[in-house]
């Protein structure tokens, strides 16, 4: 399920995954029901959603945030992530 690289960069070097604001989260589990990549899982007897598999998240996809009614999910900045990917690719090219 998890892709090993993205644009030639090891997936685990790209910090792109959802973050849950538990002050806003209503524990509706819509995120877990919505994401087909099993990024989310449930803890504490299935009561609390958590980001269990961050590297399963499709880089640049933010669809789960839109499915979240209380707007409790956020993602990193796309421009910063693109800059990081370019930087790592340049470093790899110099090796």
């Amino acid at each position, binding site marked *: 399920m*998890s892709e*090993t690289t993205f*644009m030639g960069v090891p997936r685990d070097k790209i910090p792109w995954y959802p973050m849950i604001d538990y002050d806003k989260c209503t524990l509706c589990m819509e995120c877990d029901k919505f994401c087909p990549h099993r990024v989310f899982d449930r803890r504490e007897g299935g009561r609390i959603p958590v980001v269990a598999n961050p590297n399963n998240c499709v*880089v*640049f*996809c933010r*669809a789960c945030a839109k*499915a979240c*009614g209380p707007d409790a999910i956020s993602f990193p900045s796309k421009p910063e992530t693109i800059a990081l*990917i370019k930087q790592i690719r340049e470093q790899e090219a110099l090796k």
Partner: protein
Amino acid sequence: MKRAILSCNGLDKPEGSVAREVAIRGADATGSEIICPVLLNRAPARYRKALSESSLLVVDGCSTRCATKLAARLEAKVERKLLVSDAVKASGQALEPTLNLGPNGTALAQSIVDELLRNLNPPPVAEFETPTEYLVVTHDKFEFRIPVVDYVFNENDVWARVLDGVARVGISDYMQQKLTDINYFDAPRIDAAVEQFGELGSLESAKAVFEIISPVGGTVTAVNQAVIDNPGLINEDPYGAGWLVEMKLSTWPQDQELLLDPAAYAETVKRKAAEE
């Protein structure tokens, strides 16, 4: 085909008041019938004729998307979905925190309707030829086609074909097969400025919602109305009649740095298929 508007009633939120206003103004501007979501939910037979003869313009106030879910449950034909909370964010202007519409809410409702009218009457599209030669990646019983020339791809399985400063954009054969039968294209608005790797709307199938990640930066100049009317075209012909949008390019050729040519994308598809 006739149109009808299904809007959230939204009596408890400012976004709902805007949704209601959008429905009223939109119905007036497009000659559409308004469908009451409460009555539709309670007695769907009341609207059976309207639903069979019309395509729906669905207006939701917030991300809970009650109207969209109601339309999906009744398997109604949806032409456009409008989400007020997204429009609020895009406008950068907060709504008045009251249930009565204030000046901001009224202005937003009118701008949503104006944009809807622009999108329902899109400008003519550019001429692109359908590809004839393909690379074929085989995995188990599946075959994934990739045009040999003229197409570039991002690693999010979205292609672009560039001609005279305009890009036509769609999804790859691999992704359409992965999604299976696509039943809805939530198109971006005409004139939207989208950066490379920005969002170009989404596709919905029985299996998943797929966010369309733009391979290029630019301004949306056209959306494929044929695909909005019949999303199955994407499954039938993902590189030809199933194209999604056209964009006037703004960051080309720099965008190419993070794009794949057909041969490199074929290797990516091989890897992805093996990792599934």
